[in-house]
């Protein structure tokens, strides 16, 4: 699954640590999601989307093979 968290972070001029603090997770979690190493739960995906005021599908998209 691909995501545009890094792009959204850049748009909001935020660091991984800033975003992590806002949604109450560790910086490592944000890093792992951005790198595609970890697929977040629906709850966390919704939190991220709500924070950026976007729909979940606008941030997370399925890749071929998913």
């Amino acid at each position: 699954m691909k995501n545009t968290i890094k792009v959204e972070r850049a748009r909001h001029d935020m660091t991984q640590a800033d975003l992590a603090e806002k949604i109450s997770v560790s910086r490592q979690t944000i890093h792992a999601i951005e790198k595609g190493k970890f697929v977040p739960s629906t709850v966390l995906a919704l939190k991220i989307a709500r924070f950026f005021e976007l729909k979940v599908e606008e941030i997370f998209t399925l890749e071929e093979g998913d």
Partner: protein
Amino acid sequence: MKIQILPHIFKKIGLVLFFISFINPYMIGFMQRLLGFPLNREWSTPIWLKALELVSLSGILFYFLSKEKIEDELIYNLRMEAMSTAFIIGLGVLWLVQILTINGESTMGISGLFYFYMILFLIIYHYKKRNFSL
């Protein structure tokens, strides 16, 4: 089910208790042999060894019941993965020990199995955590 109910500090306390009491009997024996001291009976009585074992097992319990600094779903997943991997490897090792000692008695007791599981879990968990941080 989340069973991490103790504060993060108990993770460190648990580790210290585990390693001190786990290493102690071996260290005492090793030092006595290395330095040629006569075997100090006081440190190797069954009650003393049992007490050390209890402290060590308490350390394991503290460690598994305490939270990380930031407890989130990544940590939860990593912990579960490390636990299941350690369990499967532990079973494999137990199977091997049983095969190798088929004619004799296995020397790996229940405590030994838990110590092995704990060390295996720690290695896998920290390796996975490190991998996700890079």
